[in-house]
């Protein structure tokens, strides 16, 4: 079983990103579970979302204590939360940041694989606004292909096409692909 933990700020789309990963895996024939951690969150407050991907039905209904992958959508969270808590030593840490993986390693003291991408910059250049949740998914897939890019594209079309129109949906896919290209990996 593969367990993922997303750190983001309420309103940044962490829950959507987690659901997209889960739904893409479901499309690929896996069993999945995704759930956010609900608290007194307001826009900007730190929130967590979780994903489980398995070959058998997921029966666990407890929180994820030692994830295989941690995805940090907002770099400022590295300052106020211990994001690598419980993360498996041979796990993967994906961070949306202009910094290099080496700098993040220094900051977090995490010894496993680290992947960084400046998703905020990519999003600002393509959308003119900061939607950091999609670029980190591109980086995540590059660092570890837990789902195929094609499945994620299908999900993006499925969820966004009706809601925000074809053009913006294409832009979302573009941010994911550019993040995939630009992501830096260490370890």
């Amino acid at each position, binding site marked *: 079983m593969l367990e993922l933990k997303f750190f983001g700020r309420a309103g940044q789309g962490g829950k959507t990103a987690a659901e997209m990963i889960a739904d893409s895996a479901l499309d690929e024939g896996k069993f999945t579970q995704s759930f956010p951690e609900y608290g007194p969150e307001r826009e*900007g*407050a*730190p929130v967590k979302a979780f994903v489980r991907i398995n070959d058998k039905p997921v029966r666990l209904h407890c929180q994820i204590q030692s994830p295989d992958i941690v995805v940090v959508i*907002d770099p*400022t969270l590295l300052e*106020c939360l211990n994001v690598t808590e419980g993360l498996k030593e041979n796990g993967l840490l994906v961070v949306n940041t202009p910094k290099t993986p080496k700098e993040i390693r220094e900051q977090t003291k995490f010894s496993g694989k680290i992947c960084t991408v400046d998703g905020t910059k990519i999003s600002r250049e393509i959308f003119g606004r900061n939607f950091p949740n999609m670029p980190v998914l591109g980086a995540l897939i590059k660092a570890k292909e837990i789902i195929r890019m094609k499945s994620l594209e299908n999900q993006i079309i499925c969820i966004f096409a009706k809601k925000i129109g074809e053009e913006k949906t294409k832009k979302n896919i573009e941010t994911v692909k550019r993040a995939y290209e630009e992501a830096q990996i260490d370890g």
Partner: protein
Amino acid sequence: MAKKKKLQAVCPVEHGWKTIKPAGITEPGSAEELKTGDWRSQRPIHNMEKCIHCLQCFIFCPDCAIKTTEDGKFKEFDYYHCKGCGICAEICPVKAIDIADESESLEKEKKENKQNAKK
């Protein structure tokens, strides 16, 4: 004013059931100690030269995060509580408030602190 103690965005859990006060009774006004500044992904930067001290920002700030001087002028932002909503920048009639990226600002702050330490 120095804070007595600074709590995390989520209060640390440590006390057992035998030592806590009953019925969820807590310190009065303890919400003030919640560091909502942790919720910020962008921060307001004040430009004293442009500021006309109209205090529109003070009126509109939903978090009372604008500190004023005794004679009723803009003093500084209370970054412990400011959530970075940007209403102050929006309302400012003379555009004396800029919105900057929080992570970049933090980096800058760190560098400045280092330099100050060297000095």
